[in-house]
């Protein structure tokens, strides 16, 4: 399998000598093409910092992150921006849609900032919208949509540019359980049909159970890693719960 993401011994420190916080303390892992990986951890475990470092929003203190062959810790300025818009797709907890634009325009924006051909845009948008079941809300504004619809529009925006890696930060965090289920089913679909590589951060075991692999993080280190393999989603969910119990329960009260 082709490796899309390689994280090598990364560390991220906050503060100064006297009060040093190690948000990430030597994490190494790889993500292969077509994988759907969930990263779980309590608040303060460093999972969001990890995602921010991979998404180039934050910088690592030491270590390297490779997306395909590119070492993204070495990128600066506009190279960074280009990398971000061409190789990565983002899905945020709070959707981050532009409220002045319609759903269609929000999705188109991801293409236009790449300087994509206007003529090909429409077909692409319609195709992705079909896959995410948002064809009927394309002309609506964000304030006219439900949370689930908004998140699917954001997902469409993230994958329309066919990025190497889709990064999702608590994508179900602001959704009710029905909308969350619908979104995750779409993620599964995108993962299987479009072969999209997805890296998702969550603290919710149910959300994580849709992934093919779950990495657990505690105090800035990898605590455990489990694969779905041939399990059903239900079985995988139970396995996740077991690890969560093992992790000790100050979090995951969502269960």
């Amino acid at each position, binding site marked *: 399998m082709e490796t899309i993401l390689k994280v090598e011994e990364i560390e991220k420190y906050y503060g100064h000598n006297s009060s040093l916080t190690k948000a990430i303390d030597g994490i190494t892992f790889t993500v292969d093409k077509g994988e759907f990986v969930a990263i779980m951890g309590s608040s303060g475990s460093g999972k969001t910092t990890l995602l921010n470092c991979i998404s180039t929003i934050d910088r690592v203190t030491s270590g390297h992150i490779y997306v395909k062959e590119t070492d993204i810790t070495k990128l600066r300025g506009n190279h960074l921006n*280009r990398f*971000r818009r061409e190789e990565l797709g983002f899905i945020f907890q709070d959707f981050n849609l532009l409220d002045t634009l319609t759903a269609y325009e929000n999705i*188109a*924006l991801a293409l236009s*900032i790449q300087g994509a051909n206007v003529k090909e*845009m429409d077909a692409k948008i319609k195709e992705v919208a079909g896959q995410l079941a948002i064809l009927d809300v394309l002309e609506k504004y964000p304030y006219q949509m439900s949370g689930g619809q908004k998140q699917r529009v954001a997902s469409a925006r993230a994958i329309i540019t066919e990025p190497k890696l889709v990064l999702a930060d608590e994508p179900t965090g602001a959704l009710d359980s029905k909308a969350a289920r619908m979104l995750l089913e779409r993620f599964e679909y995108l993962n299987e049909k479009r072969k999209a590589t997805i890296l998702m951060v969550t603290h919710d075991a149910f959300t994580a159970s849709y992934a093919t692999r779950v990495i657990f993080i505690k105090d800035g280190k990898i605590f455990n890693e489990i694969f779905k393999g041939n399990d059903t989603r239900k079985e995988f969910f139970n396995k996740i719960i077991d690890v969560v119990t093992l992790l000790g329960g100050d979090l995951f009260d969502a269960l």
Partner: protein
Amino acid sequence: MLFKISIKNIKKSFKDYAIYFFTLILGVSIFYVFNSINSQTIMMDVTERTDEIIRLLEQMLASVSVFVSFILGFLIIYASRFLMKRRNKEFAIYLTLGMSKRKISFLLFLETLLIGLLSLGVGLVLGVFLSQLMSVFVVNLFDADMTKFTFVFSSSACLKCLLYFGIMYLLVMLFNTFSVSKCKLIDLYHASKRSEKLKVKNPFLCIVIFILSVMALSYAYYTVTIGFSNLDTADKIVKPIVLGVVATFFLFFSISGLLLKVIQGMKGIYYKGLNSFIVRQMSSKINTTVFSMTTICLMLFITICVLSSALTIKNSMQNNANALAPADIQLTKSMYVSKAEGYTEEEITDSKVGIRETLVQAGIDLEQDVKDMVEVGIYQTPTLTLRDTLGARFEEVRKQYLFLRYDAKEDIMKVSDYNKIAQLYGLEEFTLKDDEYMVVADFKSMVNVRNMGLLHHEEIEVFGKILSPKYEECKEGFVELSAQHINAGIILVPDEVAREEDLKIDMLVGNYKKSSKQEKIEVEEKLLKKLGNTNIFNNTKIDILNASVGLGALVTFIGLYLGIIFLISSAAILALKELSESSDNKERYRMLRRIGTDEAMIEKALFKQIAIFFFLPLFLAIIHSIFGMLFANKILEIYGNEQLLPSILLTGLFLVFIYGGYFFLTYICSKRIIKDN
């Protein structure tokens, strides 16, 4: 504690609202500069008569200052209300923490006080320095010699600044207190949650409104330019003005609705780069800012017109005064006046005596001081009025120029008399055959009126003789020394036609023998004193120059004063609006950055937005101004309009510096606001 908070608040807002402080400081300093003109003349060598003009100028500027303080007052209240609104969330926090409304009011009071003191202090210092520069300009304007350079400080202007701005800040404090006492916690909380509702206007309706406004504007333009002659009474100008204002508003209203639709239709452009984002931003904003766009457009329009008219008048006046007053002194005496005109018996007797004899009687030897002396006569007859010169064309002319006095008696001169004057003035001389007449004039509207008659070879009867025109148009020329083109027409006739008993005015024109300016003034003062006891009127070049310089200065100062204040007010309103938009949209720019938009692309998008907001009103204002200036030109015809181009260029320079300066400042500050930290 409260004091600490207010100082911190100011420091915090100083970064975001540098433009507000900048405008306040500018306002104070301009106010000071224009109110301290009087003290600036200390360093000049001015004559008594110039001094009078400066006193008049001071009075005029004082009353304009009241008007200016109203404009600035509105600007300050608008701006502070605007800044207050942006701080609703902060007030909500204070209130939930249990701070009383009285304390919040006091906090705001302290802030306003500090801002006021700061801006007054800095503004006054800046004003004092600017006024030193201004005095060089004043010296130049009055053609005076700078005797000594002294650093001038006008305590009266300073006190006035303190008083006027003190009142303005006091009003702001009252206003703030009022709005704090009125606000409810729940509203303050909701204010921070902006629910963006986009009202989409009906495009069809927009097109209809757009077409109607363009038509209304065209009609208004037509009325003040081509249809100018129909504007015979002052109240008729109100209609095109009101029409223009309303049409401007609806034009912006409809453009805001159409902009989106039109650009959206052009998919190639709309989906290119951040264009869709820009257009959406614009149309969401323009919906709410149609009113302020209109205000700003109209203020810019006034600025452009006031500035360029004022500069035109000033330039033309100085040039005209030299060209139109080519001799040093002109003495006139009314002849053969009658009881019917309201004269006394004594005056009637005196009016039978010629001007030279009167001078001799008064013991004045003009030859001693004056050379190149010429004596000429102007005749009038009740049988020759303006109406008579137009003959059969009268009805046609009256339809166009309703307001003329057609029964006024015409001035008539012997052609040889006129030639004497023309020779002295350096004007064209003429010859006439026995049955010919001609007209000399230089007041353009009257030239047009008279040409209608002359073109059709209307014959006139002068003292019983029928004459026909030699030329089909008026010839350029004048007799009276003046600062403007005011010769409405003098009819030149062959010498033998004129009859002595119809002499109306006996006139002497000449130059002083002395050549230096100072000596001329001395001679003139002596002479005029002696003439005071006679019925002889005088008209001198020195007087005309002084008056025109004074009037020119008056117009320039008031034009500059109002123009600059209007300009900074409108630019400041726009700048504040744009800055607050930028901080509202911070989150949107952050999102664009997160999905990987280049910094350059974002900056370009920001630039485009601010540019459109600054230049859309300016664009319409310039179109308005073209027609406004055409109109002003017709009104200012007597001053001559040959100096239009330089003054328009100068106005453009002001616009570029002040308006453009605000634009760039806004762009730079906005860029800083949307920067991700």
